[in-house]
C-alpha cells in the first residue's frame, strides 16, 4: 500500500513537472511583458512535433532535438512577436486585446501543426524498451526523472538569469515600467522580442520532453489550460510559484484520480482553481497587490 502511494506520487510528480514547465513559460511572458499569452502551449506543441522530425526523420540524437526545438520555437516566437504583437502595441492595443489576439494565434499555430505534421500521434523512436529503476514493486522510469530535473533546472536558471544578469534585470525593468526603462536606456522593444523568444525556446524544450514521455501530436497543447491553472495556483507571474503550482497540481491530480474519482478529476481541478481564486487570488507565492 505504501509502495502504491509512492508510485502514485511519482506519477503525480511527472504530470506536475509537465504542468510546471509550461506554467513557467506563461509566467515568464507575464513577468516580462505583462501579457497573458494563450498561444504559449502551442509553441510547446510545435516543439514536440519539431523534435519528432529531428529524431525520427533526421535520425539525430536527443540533445539535437532539444536544442533544435528550442531554437525553432524561440525564433518562431520572435517572428510572431514582430509580426503580430508589436504592430498591435504600436496601435495602442491594451493587454486584453493582445491576450485575445493570442487565442487566435494559438489556433493558427495548432492548425499549422496539423497541416505540417498531419493529424497523427507521433511517438518518438525508442532505441530500447523503457528503462526503469526498480525498488521492490516501485518503478521509476528514467524519462520521467529527466522531466523532473528539467523543470527544476529551468526555474533555477531563469531565476538566476532574471535576477543576476544585466539583460535579465533590464527585462524586468522593461516589464515593470516601460517608459522609465526606455528613458534610462533600456531598448524596451528589443527586450520584449527577446522575452518572447526566451519563452518560445522554453516551450520548445518542454515540448520535446513531454513528447518523449508520451507522443507528439498537434493537439498536445491542450495540456496548456491545466498549466495555466498551475501558474495561477502558484502565483501568476512568479517563476518558483509556477513550479510549485505545477507540482502541487500534478500530485493533487494523481491522488484525486486514484482516491476520489478518475472520471471527475478535471472537475475537481478546476474547482480547486476557483477556490484558489476566491480565497487566495495572488496564488501561493504571489504578492498580494500586483499591478496587472
Amino acid at each position, binding site marked *: 500500500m505504501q509502495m502504491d502511494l509512492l508510485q502514485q506520487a511519482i506519477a503525480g510528480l511527472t504530470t506536475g513537472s509537465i504542468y510546471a514547465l509550461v506554467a513557467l513559460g506563461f509566467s515568464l511572458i507575464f513577468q516580462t511583458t505583462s501579457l497573458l499569452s494563450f498561444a504559449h502551449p502551442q509553441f510547446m506543441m510545435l516543439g514536440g512535433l519539431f523534435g519528432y522530425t529531428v529524431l525520427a526523420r533526421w535520425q539525430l540524437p536527443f540533445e539535437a532535438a532539444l536544442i533544435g526545438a528550442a531554437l525553432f520555437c524561440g525564433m518562431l516566437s520572435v517572428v510572431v512577436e514582430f509580426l503580430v504583437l508589436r504592430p498591435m502595441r504600436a496601435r495602442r492595443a491594451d493587454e486584453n486585446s493582445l491576450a485575445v489576439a493570442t487565442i487566435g494565434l494559438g489556433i493558427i499555430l495548432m492548425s499549422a501543426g496539423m497541416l505540417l505534421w498531419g493529424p497523427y500521434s507521433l511517438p518518438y523512436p525508442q532505441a530500447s524498451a523503457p528503462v*526503469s529503476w526498480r525498488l521492490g514493486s516501485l*518503478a521509476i522510469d528514467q524519462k520521467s526523472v529527466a522531466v523532473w530535473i528539467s523543470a527544476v533546472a529551468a526555474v533555477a536558471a531563469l531565476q538566476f538569469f532574471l535576477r543576476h544578469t544585466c539583460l535579465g534585470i533590464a527585462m524586468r525593468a522593461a516589464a515593470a515600467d516601460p517608459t522609465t526603462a526606455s528613458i534610462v536606456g533600456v531598448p524596451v522593444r528589443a527586450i520584449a522580442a527577446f522575452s518572447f523568444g526566451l519563452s518560445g525556446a522554453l516551450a520548445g524544450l518542454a515540448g520535446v520532453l513531454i513528447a518523449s514521455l508520451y507522443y507528439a501530436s498537434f493537439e498536445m497543447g491542450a495540456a496548456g489550460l491545466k498549466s495555466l491553472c498551475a501558474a495561477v495556483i502558484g502565483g501568476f507571474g512568479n517563476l518558483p510559484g509556477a513550479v510549485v503550482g505545477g507540482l502541487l497540481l500534478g500530485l493533487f491530480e494523481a491522488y484525486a484520480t486514484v482516491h476520489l474519482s478518475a472520471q471527475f478529476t478535471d472537475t475537481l481541478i478546476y474547482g480547486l482553481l476557483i477556490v484558489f481564486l476566491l480565497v487566495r487570488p495572488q496564488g501561493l507565492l504571489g504578492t498580494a497587490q500586483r499591478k496587472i
Partner: protein
Amino acid sequence: MRRPRFFVSIVAAITAVAAVLQLQVAKAQTGDEPIKIGWLGALSGVLAPYGLENKRGVEFAVEAINKAGGINGRKLDVIYVDSKFDSGFAVQSIQRFALQDKVVAVLGDISSALTVAEVPVTARFGIPQLASLAGTPKITAMGSKFIFRPYPAVTLTYGAIAGYAVDKLKLKRFATIAYNDEGGLASIQAFTDTATKLPGVQVVASEVVPVDTKEFKGLLTKLRGSNPDALVVAAAAPVSGLIVRQVREIGWDVQLLGHGGYHAVQEFRDVAGPAADSMVLATTYAPGYYKHPEAQKFATDWQAAHGQPPRDLEAHGYDQVNMLAWAIKQGSPDRTAIRDKLAGLKDWPGAAGVYTFLENGDVKKDVVIQSWKDGKLLPIEVYGVK
C-alpha cells in the same frame, strides 16, 4: 421594349430545363438503367483513412458485380459523397440521395455522430441504410427499421473477448480501464455484462478516465492492487498505447485484453511499442482466417488485384455491397423490398465472416482472436459469438 424579350428568354430557358428533366425521368423508368446507391463517409479530415479504406472495398465489389453483368441485367452505380464531418451536410446529402438521385440504399457513415444524425432521415424516407464503421450502440437503439450495421459494434467484440478470456484462457478476475466516452463506456458495459454471467467470474475493479489523460501509472498501481488475472482496456489509440506501455513500465505482468478497432491499428502499436506483445484482441477480420469459400475467394482476388492482403474495412465494404446485391437479387430493387430481405439475412457468408442480422439491425458474427507479437498481428483462432 427589353422586358418582354428578357421574359421570353427566361421562359425558354425554363422550358429547356424542364424538357431535359423530363427526358431524364423518362430514361430512369426504362428497365436497364443502373441501380443507384448512395455512399456517405469521410473522404477528408481525421476519419479519411477509414472512409477511403471502406470505399476501396465498396468499389472492388461494385466493379466485380458490374463486370459480371450487374444484378438481373442492371448495373450498380454508387454516388460517393464526402460527409465532411458535418451532420447538417450529411442529412442534406441523404435528402438529395432520396429525392433527386432516387437511390435504393445508403452505405455509411463512418462517424458515429454523423450516423446518429442520419438514421432518422433514412427512416423517414424509408431507405435501407448499411452503416460502415460507426460503433455507438445508439445507432441501432433509435428504433429505425431501415438501419443495418454489418460492422460489429464494440459491444459485440467486448462480449466476445469476455467469453474467450473465460472459456479459453481460463481467467476469472478482471479489472477494466476505459475512456470516458460513448465507445469506452459501452465496451466495458458489454464486457462486464457478458463476463459476470459466467460462473465464478468477477470484475474486481473498474476505472474510467477522462479522454485527455496521459499519465496512468498511479491509477494502474491501484488496479494492480485488486490483483486481477487480466486488465481489459477500452480506449482508442493513441491513448490506449500509453496505458499498455505504462502497465509494463510499472512492472506489472498482467494479461491485457482489447478489441481490434482500438488495438489492432498501427497507431496503437507505435505508441505502445513492445509492451503490446501478448495482448489478446477480439478483432473483426483477419485475411484468410474465415474458412468458407466466399471469404477465401475474396482474400485471393484482393491479393491478386492489389498485391497486398485486404484490410478490415475493405472486407466489410465489400460485404456491404454484396449483401445489398443479394437482397436486390432475392426480391426487387425497391427500398422496402430490400429492407425486408436484409432484415431476414441469416448465416450469410461474406468476405469478413458469416453474418446474421438481429432484430435491431446489429450484426451477429464470429470474431477472430489475434495477438501482437514482435510488431505484427498474429491470428489465433475464429471464436464463435453466442
